[in-house]
């Protein structure tokens, strides 16, 4: 039977997805020491055995990976070795006096930056353990040329820096996923496409069969009942989890399909779930009430069919 589409993928705006990832980064000894001292308005650098001086401090020379070094205090003055200005904000490359590397920071003030201009650090108030304890560098033609000095006892390095990534994505559905999710949203109908030379459906639908790489066939409505192929009982909490444990993670083959779909089954307790929910158990979708969005969350959960 040929099932002509009555909904169209073009209606689906991209899927908005967010990842909010927390981190605890370790800067290592040199950068950790730089961060520990920057609040005291002293710039820690490393002087390697070969004489190369790098500031802010690094554990390994960016020139050749050399790892023997001692801490030095770098001056808060230097020269501008490069810059770029976008929307009135200037980011410059700064080479501190007596040092062998350039590092990026903000260039502050109204004065027009020029290559090789003298610059001087502008300290921020109330900021420590961050490169932003230096608010930026200002053009200072008359700044005296500073010197690298030995650093006495340094503070213990900062061991952990909190960080986060908040990532936003707009995933395009494409014609196959678009049609499938539009059907789910509009008609509570789960549709796949037929495998080549078969009445069984690939779910999610796609253009080609994974193994033979032949073009798939016509659209087919799968039922919202199916059989568990594999399942486990989730009893741990983790970041990003969408429901409280315990619950069952199930890979379900819907009736009419030949591939799995992942969903959840609510349970009362672990022991009874072990007995009641296993490979081969028959289940049905419980659709979410209210507005549907065109995602697998339009199915609230699956439940065991008591036979």
């Amino acid at each position, binding site marked *: 039977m040929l099932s002509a589409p009555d909904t169209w993928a073009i209606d689906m705006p991209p899927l908005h997805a967010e990842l909010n990832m927390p981190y605890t980064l*370790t800067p290592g000894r040199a950068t950790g020491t730089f961060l520990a001292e920057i609040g005291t308005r002293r710039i820690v650098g490393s002087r390697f055995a070969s004489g190369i001086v790098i500031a802010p401090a690094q554990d390994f020379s960016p020139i050749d*990976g050399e790892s023997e070094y001692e801490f030095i205090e770098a001056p808060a003055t230097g020269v501008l070795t490069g810059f770029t200005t976008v929307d009135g904000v200037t980011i410059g490359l700064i080479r501190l006096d007596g040092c062998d590397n350039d590092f990026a920071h903000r260039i502050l003030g109204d004065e027009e930056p020029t290559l090789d201009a003298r610059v001087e650090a502008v300290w921020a108030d109330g900021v420590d353990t961050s490169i932003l304890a230096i608010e930026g560098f200002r053009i200072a033609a008359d700044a005296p040329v500073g010197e690298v000095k030995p650093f006495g006892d340094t503070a213990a390095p900062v061991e952990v820096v909190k960080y986060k990534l908040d990532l936003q994505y707009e995933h395009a559905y494409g014609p196959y*996923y678009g049609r499938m999710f539009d059907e789910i949203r509009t008609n509570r109908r789960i549709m796949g496409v037929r*495998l080549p030379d078969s009445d069984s459906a690939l779910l999610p639908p796609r253009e080609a069969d994974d193994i033979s790489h032949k073009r798939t066939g016509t659209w087919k409505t799968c039922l919202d009942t199916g059989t568990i192929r594999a399942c486990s009982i*989730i009893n741990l909490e983790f970041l990003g989890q969408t429901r409280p444990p315990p619950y069952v993670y199930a890979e379900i083959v819907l009736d009419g399909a*030949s*591939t799995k779909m992942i969903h959840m089954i609510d349970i009362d307790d672990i022991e009874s779930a*072990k007995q009641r929910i296993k*490979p081969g158990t028959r289940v049905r979708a419980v659709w979410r009430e209210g507005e549907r969005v065109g995602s697998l969350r339009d199915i609230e959960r699956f439940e065991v069919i008591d036979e």
Partner: protein
Amino acid sequence: MANLNKGRHVGIVGVGQTHHSRRRTDVSQAGLVREAVDRALADAKLTMDDIDTVVIATGPVLFAAVNQPEKWVADAIGAQLKPIVRVTSGGGAGFAGGLAGYYQVAGGFADRTLVVAYDKLSEGALQYSISTLYDPFWGREFAVGIMGFSAAYWRARMDVLGHTEEAAARVAVKNRRNAIANPYAHVKKEVTLDEVLESKPLCWPIKLLDVPPISDGAAAIVLAAEHVAHKSCDRPAWIHGIAYCCEADNAAERSLLLSEPLALAAKHVYRAAGITNPRRQFDVVEVQEPYTCFELNYYESLGLCPPGGAAELIASGATELNGDIPVNPSGGCLGANPIGACGLIRLIEGATQVMGKSENTQIKDAKLALVQSGGGWANLRGCAVLGA
């Protein structure tokens, strides 16, 4: 698949790894890598100047929030201006790095290649990061890292292949005991069968003591062509075959009970290495077992026993240190689990056994080692044969 008997002979001539731990707050990610590289180069009696090319392998960027980390790592190991590629491939990243390095030397593009692999898992949210390997439309919102998925197919294998909770618990007892002698492992505590079986279910049937630690760690090897290998050591671990294949887990009618990609890789590697009876021919085996149930599956996919024979094999004691086919004398992932490095660590543990210089329990007269690596339940998986 390509003919694995082509190309130059390649040996592992130097190895190094960090003392793995739950959290290293004294070194950055790059500093961690440096430790392993220094040890591998010293072991191979070489300096970075002797290295032609470098392969850097890590897990996903989301594990530790540093994009293009090979730039940072290259600076830290003194590999500026060398030809460098980064390889990332889920749980098998370190092994895939080894494979990439092997191709460079076997193909004649390099005489000596340094392969380094690492992950510093204490820095990010592990299960959350792993869940992003799922299709954002189709399953990601329900993913439980790879643990939920792996446990589900273990449950299915119980019914069909008899991989019972007790059989997997024996893997936990064996590997945790073996890890005690491994100077680089950080979980060194003997457990009993009952303790494993009674430990808290996390994703049942996977329980707390079936699960490896989360680790910070790095590993490095030096691969060398035959005409320069002798400058580093008298007894390299020669790579007789190495392959890494992809699962087709979303294809129709896949049971996912046996590991098809691993069985395929084994078929090709065994042909290249002349292995016809793996159980009898190998002296030692190292497998990457993210959870204990994986080791049972690998026994079968690697042909150490027939499908359905894994529970009997572990119960027989044959895979213990004093058995006829010891598996994971290092303790495997249950001793330390810096994911991106694990595949390379397994290669190191297999190599040092046949080189006769294992720092764990040395298997007497080990001449031929089988090494397996790969990611979560349905993923990329591979194996290698190493010989003295």
